[in-house]
């Protein structure tokens, strides 16, 4: 991270992304720009820092992130990277991610641009026809490994996983895979499109969350390869069947407790909301409140269709509004991002983590079982008996005191 200390400090090891090899991603590297660097330019420090770190860790490649300040003082990241690449013999790739340039979407694009420079730089002649790349999955708590195992059972070879448990050497030959599976999060869609345009390899959107989406995604991939491998559909059906068999008894046990409980879903995109509504239905739970920050009019029409009558559908609500809905529907568990967790807890509502900090896998069929376990652990806790919104019912009328000491 070429910038002042904060940019690196607040992103240090914040994801639960696992690696099957080295763990360089769990370290935080920065030039820690100081006032004199701002005045005289940060290029010499960047070059020295890169040389030092590359010598120390011997990575396969280095990505160098630009921050607000670097954009302002005009350091030539590209030139420094080229120089260090020449000296060290590894690719050193600038990521033009100055904070003021836009939202995280622009950051995704900057990262895809940098990664795309690696694509197509290695031999792909030994890659079989039945091959895919896993895009947009981050191996949170080992999720990529779960998906990879399913795909291998279907008879597919996974060339690269981007960026969960990703490898530079795999990225170099990722253009050799026949299909790019892009998880609904938009992080790597740009990369898939670049590969499609230059190498003619198509992509499809997938989701590894929830039983239906998981199965649909696998079937979608099987269908793509069906004319090359007539057996793949049968293998996939068998996989889905056996995986479901494995989790259904466990789900039924959770369902017994959770039947009739109420959930509120408030997530970034509408796609995830659909997935969650279906998941809660498997648990016998009602989604009483559902909303997203970025949903379109069509998304909301569809939400209205798939939810039960009486469900509150919200669009980009503020905490006060969310609170009203939570109270009105007396919900038992809230599903949202990191931002919503402290709000839910403060108001005494159960919460299910559905973000990159999670330490348990929620993807795949086994992920559905973990999701049920998570929801169960929050909903069934006795602590809600004591939170203000519920405690009142247990108090005798007239016992409340209004004075403030």
């Amino acid at each position, binding site marked *: 991270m070429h910038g*002042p200390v*904060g940019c690196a*400090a607040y992103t240090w090891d914040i994801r639960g992304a696992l690696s099957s090899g080295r763990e360089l991603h769990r370290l935080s590297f920065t030039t820690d*720009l*100081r006032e004199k660097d701002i005045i005289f330019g940060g290029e010499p420090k960047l070059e020295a820092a890169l040389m030092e770190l590359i010598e120390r860790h011997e990575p396969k490649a280095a990505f160098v992130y630009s921050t*607000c300040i670097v954009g302002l003082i005009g350091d030539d990241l590209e030139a420094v990277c080229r120089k260090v690449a020449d000296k060290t013999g590894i690719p050193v790739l600038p990521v033009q991610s100055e904070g003021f340039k836009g939202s995280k979407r622009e950051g995704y694009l900057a990262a895809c641009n940098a990664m795309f420079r690696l694509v197509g730089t290695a031999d792909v002649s030994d890659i079989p026809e039945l091959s895919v790349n896993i895009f947009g999955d981050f191996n949170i708590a080992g999720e990529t490994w779960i998906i990879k195992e399913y795909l291998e059972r279907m008879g597919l070879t996974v060339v690269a996983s981007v960026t969960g448990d990703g490898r530079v050497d795999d990225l170099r030959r990722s253009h050799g895979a026949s299909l790019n599976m892009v998880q609904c999060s938009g992080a790597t869609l740009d990369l898939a499109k670049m590969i499609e345009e230059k190498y003619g390899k198509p992509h499809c959107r997938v989701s590894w969350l929830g039983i239906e989406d998981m199965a649909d995604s696998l079937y979608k991939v099987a269908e793509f390869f069906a004319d090359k491998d007539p057996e793949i559909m049968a293998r996939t059906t068998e996989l889905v069947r056996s995986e479901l068999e494995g989790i259904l008894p466990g789900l039924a046990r959770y369902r017994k407790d959770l039947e009739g409980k109420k959930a509120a879903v408030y997530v970034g995109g509408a796609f995830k909301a659909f997935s969650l509504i279906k998941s809660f239905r498997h648990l016998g739970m009602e989604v009483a409140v559902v909303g997203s920050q970025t949903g379109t009019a069509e998304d909301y029409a569809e939400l209205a269709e798939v939810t039960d009558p009486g469900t509150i559908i919200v669009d980009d609500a503020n905490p006060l509004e969310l609170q009203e809905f939570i109270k009105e529907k007396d919900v038992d568990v809230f599903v949202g991002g990191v931002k919503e967790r402290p709000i839910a807890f403060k108001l*005494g509502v159960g919460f299910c983590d559905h973000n990159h900090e999670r330490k348990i896998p929620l993807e795949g069929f086994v992920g559905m079982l973990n999701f049920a376990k998570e929801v169960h652990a929050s909903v069934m806790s006795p602590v809600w008996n004591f939170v*203000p919104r519920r405690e009142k019912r247990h108090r005798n009328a007239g016992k409340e005191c209004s004075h403030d000491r």
Partner: protein
Amino acid sequence: MTGNPASKNAVSTTNACKLCTPLGASLAFKGVEGAVPFLHGSQGCATYMRRYIISHFREPIDIASSALGEKHAVYGGGPNLKKGILNVMKKYSPSLVGVASTCLTETIGDDMGLILHEFRNDFGDLDLPDVVHVSTPSYQGTHSDGFNRAVHALVDQLADPEAAKSERVALFPGMVSPADIRLLKDIFREYGLTPTVLPDISETLDGPALEDYEPVASGGTPVSEIKALSGAAASVEFGSCLPKDSAGLCLEKRFGIENDRLRIPLGIRGADALHDVLCELSGLECMPRRYKLERGRLVDAYVDGHKYVFGKRAVVYGEENLVVALTAFLAEIGVQPVLVGTGAEGKGIAASIEAACEGVLPELPLVREGVDFHDIAEEAETMSPELVLGNSKGQRYARAWNAPLIRVGFPIHDRFGGQRLKTVSYEGTQELYDRIVNALIEKKQSDSPVGWGYI
């Protein structure tokens, strides 16, 4: 071995042992009643710092931002700052907006004082909140500087020269926990003193379960009390490495209020110094019986536990004022601090440690300023540390050394209850001492094939 304040061995930084200035300023503003911290810069700063702070306190925390884009970086962020404050007024009805700059706005040269002056002129017809601004470019200093500068700015910009004289005593506790602040307020009251604690995060960052959501958490130092500080009877501030323009010295310089600067009152000597000052300020001849008892119990515990801790080699790292207090405390219980590391530099930390350990520590630790965890680990490699004290960010190193890490300070991201840890007065010292002794006993027990029932 003291001295050697030379900065890091390497040019690059790996796993920094400091945070940035605007984070510290945001934390300080969180301790003012009805206040909303506001970062003048790009959106990412506010989002990331907020997340970082939430993971320690486990409380809803909002940090507003002027969310500058490319266009503003070129033409100046003034209009967005004004618009942002108006938005904050609409959304939170704050009594104070604490604006901290970032490296972006410092570098493009936004003059916050001027912009805010214009803001007050432009919108004078509205019921405006107080707006305090502080300069906190991330490339200058650490979160500790940001915190201290924000507290100074609050006092300097709000204190009303016309305020009436009062019996209140100002307390600037620095970056201690919400539980510490609750404890300190109790202690002051026990002495019959009425404190104005700034900042007071005891409720804002450690609040009760609620039925109704509060856009700005209750609690914090009332703005009216900050304004009245110019009439305070005295002030006390904690910190061994505070800047010259601290809040306490500001009151002293501008309003002639006597200021006592103390080390964070950890350890018997540290706590004694605080209680001496409180005796003096309250006119009591000696400290109240309950503290005599607390002190006596602490001495008793020191004696009961001394063999478990004696001679253990400790590494201490983190915020400069805390590491000085921790080192002084370890020295008086017989632990041997071998290495003290901090990301801060140029604060005379080695000299402060030497002074704080005088008479109780024959061999001073190696003190390294301006270092990251990579450096700390390099230094510690040959020292065989047996005990580590600091925030949670050194966890992987303590694990590699197979030494227990006593989590103290900010942030604590991998344990529960960081906001309730105490480190001040006899009570806080007792709590920390018990944790240290137990950690060493637990290590001994789990490392032993016997698993003794009595230790």
